[in-house]
């Protein structure tokens, strides 16, 4: 490794897959710490208690993380998944991803407060906006329509309850 800042940054970029190793190690550590904490003295039934499998999984996670790191440092690369709508030649578009996450979390935050018909519409419109749709009349109309139809279909026809929110009282 050189000391200059510039190539170093690109080295990390080249080997960003090591982040996966870090996640695996963290996960393995978490599983192990949690496993050690399980009290077994009174609950043990049979020769193998509730600790054994988490310990094995935790250790295996760390072992696989090390093996993966070795593979990455030797030049191995996980192949990014292609797909019909995936253009791998372009760099990742983080703005779209963040907007999409925002739309998703907005639904999670609002569903209990304003009910599914409204929060679902916000999710759909937000996600469509994030993905580049800019029809300011058509988009919200489709979002509202889809959301209300889904709500009625699930809640009334299929018998799967969704929260209606204050809107249902008005209707």
């Amino acid at each position, binding site marked *: 490794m050189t000391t200059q800042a510039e190539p170093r940054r690109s080295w990390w970029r080249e080997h960003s897959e090591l982040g996966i190793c870090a996640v695996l190690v963290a996960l393995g550590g978490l599983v192990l710490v949690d496993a050690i904490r399980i009290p077994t003295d009174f609950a043990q039934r049979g020769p193998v208690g509730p600790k054994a499998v988490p310990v094995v999984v935790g250790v295996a996670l760390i072992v696989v993380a090390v093996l993966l790191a070795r593979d990455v440092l030797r030049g191995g690369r*996980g192949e990014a998944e292609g797909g019909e709508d995936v253009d791998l030649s372009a760099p990742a578009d983080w703005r779209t991803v963040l907007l999409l996450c925002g739309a*998703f979390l907005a639904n999670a935050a609002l569903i209990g407060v304003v009910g599914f018909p409204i929060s679902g519409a916000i999710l759909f419109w937000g996600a469509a906006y994030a*993905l580049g749709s800019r029809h300011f009349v058509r988009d919200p109309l489709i979002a509202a329509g889809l959301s209300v139809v889904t709500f009625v279909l699930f809640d009334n026809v299929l018998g799967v309850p969704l929260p209606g929110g204050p809107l249902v009282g008005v209707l």
Partner: protein
Amino acid sequence: MDVFANLMEGFATALTPTHLALAALGVLLGTAIGVLPGIGPAMAVALLLPVTYGLEPTGAFIMFAGIYYGGMFGGSTTSILLNTPGESAAVVAAIDGNPMARKGRGAQALAAAAVGHFVGGVIGTTLLVLLAPTVAKYAVDIGAPDFFAIMVLAFIAVTSVLGASRVRGFASLLIGLTIGLVGLDEMTGQQRLTFGSLHLADGIDVVVVAVALFAVGESLWVAAHLRRKTSEAIPVGRPWLGRADVKRAWKPWLRGPFIGFPFGAVPAGGAEIPTFLSYVTEKRLSKHRGEFGKGAIEGVAGPESTASASAAGTLVSMLTLGLPTTAVAAVMLAAFQQYGIQPGPLLFQRESALVWGLIASLFIGLVLLLVLNLPLAPVWAKLLRIPRPYLYAGILFFASVGAYAVNADVFDLLVMFVIGLLGFAMRRYGLPVLPAIIGTILGPAAEQQMRRALQLSDGSLVGLFNTPFSIAVYAVVAVLLAWPLVRRLVRKPPPVEPSPQVEREKVDA
């Protein structure tokens, strides 16, 4: 044999007006969702799962059968008309199907695929009827060590046979096993990885995991790399086949199932390998070898029939052993568990009406598929032109509906978000998704069997190997694990440092 009587009873269950309507609805929904670009059968089934929540189990599974076959069929339409297969089983169909469509023979390609699905499905399902009760009968006698061995085999097969990199497959599997650990230990009631949260004490619902990995992960991943100009689907008329086409296609249709069915039944990754084998076989046997790759109808007919039969083969191990061999089967297993039904050897005894109703509706679904989809093909083709923002917004929308509907709990949406981010990272770094799903579903079951086996042997590890069956399975596992090493030894002198675990297949095109 009382198999026939059972099957007739199944038809009696499935042919009531309500159940028939559910089967038709399932076929239509399954095809519609499966046709949508970017949605493979597994995601289609996972997204449509909540639709069945309000139904009683038999109706739900009859509808599910329709969704299953519909989704499989829809995938090949995308393959043929867009040249961009949504899932591995449909990859081969694109090799010749798309050139056919580009030559203006899209209608014939779709018809060859549809009839192939029908023939493969009928033969495959018939084999399922003949084999499944027998397998179930023998499986009743196999014990905990055998089950554990089969599950180990499933874990190893799903990480080693598929995908380019074993270490990444194992990483994915372990992530799945970790997710499966969350909740109360079934034997002692101890909390594991719950961090004191009551929400987590029940474990993470498999449906939430599946939808998160397939739908949310996929949407985020596509969003990061969205192709701004989508490829144009080839317009197509009503599918039909000329006499010459049928003459060339009927043998591949009939051969396909016998390649597809056995591969579907063993844990070797579903339809990917058999469809490829079928393609190679048809190419070798064809008189029109030169046409392959440029639009040979045999190259569509054979693999499609194979894929459909392998879907039926998958059901053998799923219903009789509770062992999912593909992502779709994994989601279906989750659906069974949702109803508190555990697929396995006892299923045919305990839930006889449900199983035979399900099998009968597979036949009905196949007929409906043929009757509905041939006339509707132009409509399905239009679905390929859906604007991508709406498509992926819709996927996220229905994923949220599905995850929320499981327990009516916002917490599940947050869990789905976190696992969705994980799915995003896995796609970015080439970690296959299937091992994670299989790990989540089979992990807890495997642990139970292992502990039960060791309980019987009083803690001695011999308890895991003390049946001939389990020894045979472990031998297969050993071969799978050693295979890359063996192959390298055979091909060339051993390298300085043999490391089969890390060395990846370098596929230089």
